[in-house]
């Protein structure tokens, strides 16, 4: 009897020890190093994946698989009839993380929300530029310094945002990464100890993962937040293994060194698909790739010329050759997954003979033009040079000589925004907040000439429609306005719309619960690994 009891006790102990000793580690092989860890100070998805997404939360969060928002740190909210006042009621009992570098003494309250925004809005705030070179560029890019009047505490769990002008997309803006809610208590303690810079080195938030360590350019380590208000993650440790080369990432996944990888090379996808231990998730990207004509420079100032050129391009061949088939042909500036997408608009037919005739009719003879190829691989355009070669060949068939040019990314961006640019440039866009305004106004509005409106195209009717839609609160009404605007866009053809790329995420078959974020971020709070 004693022997059996001992054996039972021993095996029970062994089970407990074994269960406790086994920690589930999830390895994500990321494509680059984060620039820093203060999500408000940066604009790149690589940085957000490593900071705002694991460590922080926002007042509202984007629905998984959609672009609508649901309550995050705010439980509910009211919007005034004039669209100028937003009142948010915060969730009670949300804890900030306890880390080895700071222990919070209180839960989330209105002070944290006010601080998170006022530090970006108020130039006199001591955190406006708290260490060498911090600037809140995304906040500025979304026009919030002019749009947002103030953020005020109503009571411990209520915050009021007052706008200067109504903006139907404001709620969506609050789901973006720069709007992450940081801990005022943590900030105050750093300011007190003269160590403000740490805000950008060791993040502390309310999110599902706690920051543990960052080895520059090598690895980032997080551990699960057991007190996470939305349910503790199923994995215990999250590690980002920084792997800049896409083909090496694929090799690491195949060798079992990663659980999930982002941005595979189109060339590696077939190989990954045939691997029995892997599976590939795919989703329509919230993006668009296009060729922007400079509508201020002849002969591209003529609609017939632009339409003729559009007719000469074989879009399907481009999608096969450059995207490996993993893209949807683009018709409108916004992708089909977005509300407000006009299903009835059409692309010009692919017809080189007709194109040649149209060019001749428009008085264009022996046209020589430049095609600028994107120098870096972007989610919406994996190989700009190859794309340019195809365009060049297509144009040659209609008697147009195209010279391919390019420059380094920094110069390329500058050139895109130039009014006197010579030639047509490859461009693209990934949505910031899932709102059509973020595509149509930012890329095609009159105010955006020449900044982000690379075609320098300003059409009064189009512009009136999108301005009206921005201040209308009823989504169905807004959708109708945007659909009308898209028809004008097709009629005027300032772009050749290329494709909406599919985002492919390869991972081990044992990974469950990973849902692709429509904005392209990589979130791990719901993943699990089966054995």
């Amino acid at each position, binding site marked *: 009897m004693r022997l059996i009891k001992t054996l039972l006790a021993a095996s029970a102990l062994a089970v407990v020890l074994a269960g406790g000793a086994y920690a589930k580690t999830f390895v994500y092989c990321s494509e680059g190093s984060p620039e820093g860890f203060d999500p408000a100070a940066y604009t790149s998805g690589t940085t957000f994946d490593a900071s705002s997404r694991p460590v922080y939360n926002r007042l509202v969060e984007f629905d998984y698989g959609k672009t609508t928002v649901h309550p995050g740190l705010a439980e509910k909210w009211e919007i005034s009839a004039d669209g100028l006042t937003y009142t948010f009621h915060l969730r009670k009992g949300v804890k900030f993380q306890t880390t080895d570098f700071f222990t919070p003494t209180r839960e989330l309250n209105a002070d944290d929300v006010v601080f998170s925004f006022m530090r970006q809005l108020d130039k006199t705030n001591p955190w406006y530029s708290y260490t060498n070179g911090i600037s809140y560029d995304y906040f500025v890019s979304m026009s919030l310094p002019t749009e947002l009047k103030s953020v005020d505490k109503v009571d411990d769990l209520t915050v009021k945002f007052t706008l200067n002008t109504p903006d139907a997309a404001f709620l969506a803006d609050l789901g973006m990464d720069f709007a992450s809610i940081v801990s005022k208590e943590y900030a105050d303690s750093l300011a007190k100890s003269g160590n403000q810079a740490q805000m950008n080195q060791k993040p502390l938030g309310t999110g599902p993962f706690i920051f543990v360590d960052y080895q520059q350019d090598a690895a980032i380590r997080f551990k699960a937040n057991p007190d996470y208000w939305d349910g503790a993650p199923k994995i215990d440790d999250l590690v980002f293994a920084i792997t800049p080369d896409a083909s090496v990432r694929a090799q690491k996944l195949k060798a079992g060194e990663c659980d999930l990888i982002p941005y595979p090379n189109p060339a590696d996808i077939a190989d990954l698909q045939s691997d029995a231990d892997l599976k590939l998730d795919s989703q329509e990207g919230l993006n668009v790739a296009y060729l922007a004509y400079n509508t201020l420079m002849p002969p591209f100032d003529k609609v017939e010329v632009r339409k003729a050129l559009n007719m000469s391009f074989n879009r399907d061949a481009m999608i096969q050759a450059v995207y490996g088939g993993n893209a949807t042909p683009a018709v409108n500036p916004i992708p089909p997954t977005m509300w407000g997408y006009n299903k009835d608009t059409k692309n010009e037919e692919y017809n080189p003979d007709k194109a040649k005739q149209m060019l001749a009719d428009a008085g264009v003879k022996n046209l020589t033009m430049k095609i600028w190829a994107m120098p870096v691989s972007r989610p919406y355009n994996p190989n700009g040079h190859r794309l340019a070669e195809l365009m060049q060949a297509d144009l040659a068939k209609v008697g147009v000589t195209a010279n391919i040019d390019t420059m380094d990314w920094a110069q390329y961006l500058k050139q895109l925004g130039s009014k006197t640019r010579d030639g047509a440039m490859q461009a693209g*866009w990934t949505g910031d907040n899932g709102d059509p305004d973020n595509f149509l106004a930012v890329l095609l509005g009159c105010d955006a000439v020449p900044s982000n409106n690379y075609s320098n195209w300003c059409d009064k009717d189009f512009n009136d429609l999108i301005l009206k839609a921005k201040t209308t609160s009823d989504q169905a009404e807004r959708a109708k306005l945007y659909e009308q605007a898209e028809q004008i866009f097709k009629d005027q053809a300032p772009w050749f719309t290329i494709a909406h790329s599919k985002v492919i995420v390869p991972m081990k078959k044992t990974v469950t619960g990973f849902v692709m974020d429509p904005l392209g971020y990589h979130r791990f709070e719901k993943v699990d690994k089966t054995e």
Partner: protein
Amino acid sequence: MLSFLLKRIALLVPTLIGISIVSFGLIRVLSVDPVSLLSGEHAMSPERHAELMHQFGFDRPIWLQYLDYVFGVLHGDFGVSITTKTSVLTQFLTLFPATLELSLCAMLLAIVLGIPAGIFAAIKRGSWFDQLATGTALVGYSMPIFWWGLLLIIVFSGGLHWTPVSGRIDLQYFFKPVTGFMLIDSLLSGQKGAFQSAVSHLILPSIVLGTIPLAVIARQTRSAMLEVLGEDYIRTARSKGLPPRRVVGLHAFRNALIPVVTTIGLQVGLLMAGAVLTETIFSWPGVGKWMIDAIGHRDYAVVQGGLLIIAVIIMLVNLCVDLLYAVINPRVRVHG
């Protein structure tokens, strides 16, 4: 000897000034300032641009910015990276040991294999070994590093699972760096299997980075040996009846060593700053990739600081090479 050393160190100063001016100016010659890139693909308004230029001090006259920079450097402050907002010097000191460790391992491989190969190729001139060695050196020198690295990964890591794919050590080993050298730190950590993991992660990157230096050193050793073996004093030594090993090992090799040492010194310099491709493929967190990325971001402080520090290191390496000459070749000692 001392006066030689002092003269060389004194020469460092004007060289450094020159390099600081060149690196400062060269990165600014590139169009597009760093501020414009801070908003990514979102365009920046002219007012915002002016505000940020002022915040960073880029709107000051260039000579003032330069003097400010030099003043900082003399106090050990190399400025702050515009992307990470952290000190350039701290970043360099964090990343450099990785580059140094990889470079040393690559050089070790290149020297240990290259010199004997060159010597034997010279001794057995015209033999199959000579042909093989020369041919292999040519191939090694001509291979694109990216292709070579990826090929090795696919075959040895992906196919045979003999080596890991990338990185410096298995992710399960987590310890604070002490020296920055993974081989040393893994031993110090006391964690079981850490050192072996560090070694296995060094194998492929060392081979890839060391291939070109190996080829160059092998060829240089071979031609230097051939030249020396044809000298009169070698014939004299042989006719004196000295054993061949002594002839080759002591007399021939020591004299052939001088051009080989020069080559090694040059290769070390190249490895320090030129490991970008290897660092990218093997996810090796070193200074090469850091600096190349900085150019793309127009991260002035990183490019200037990185160039300056690496220049100092290369100059010190060259100084050591020159001192080594004096040791190997007594004639330099007498005249220098």
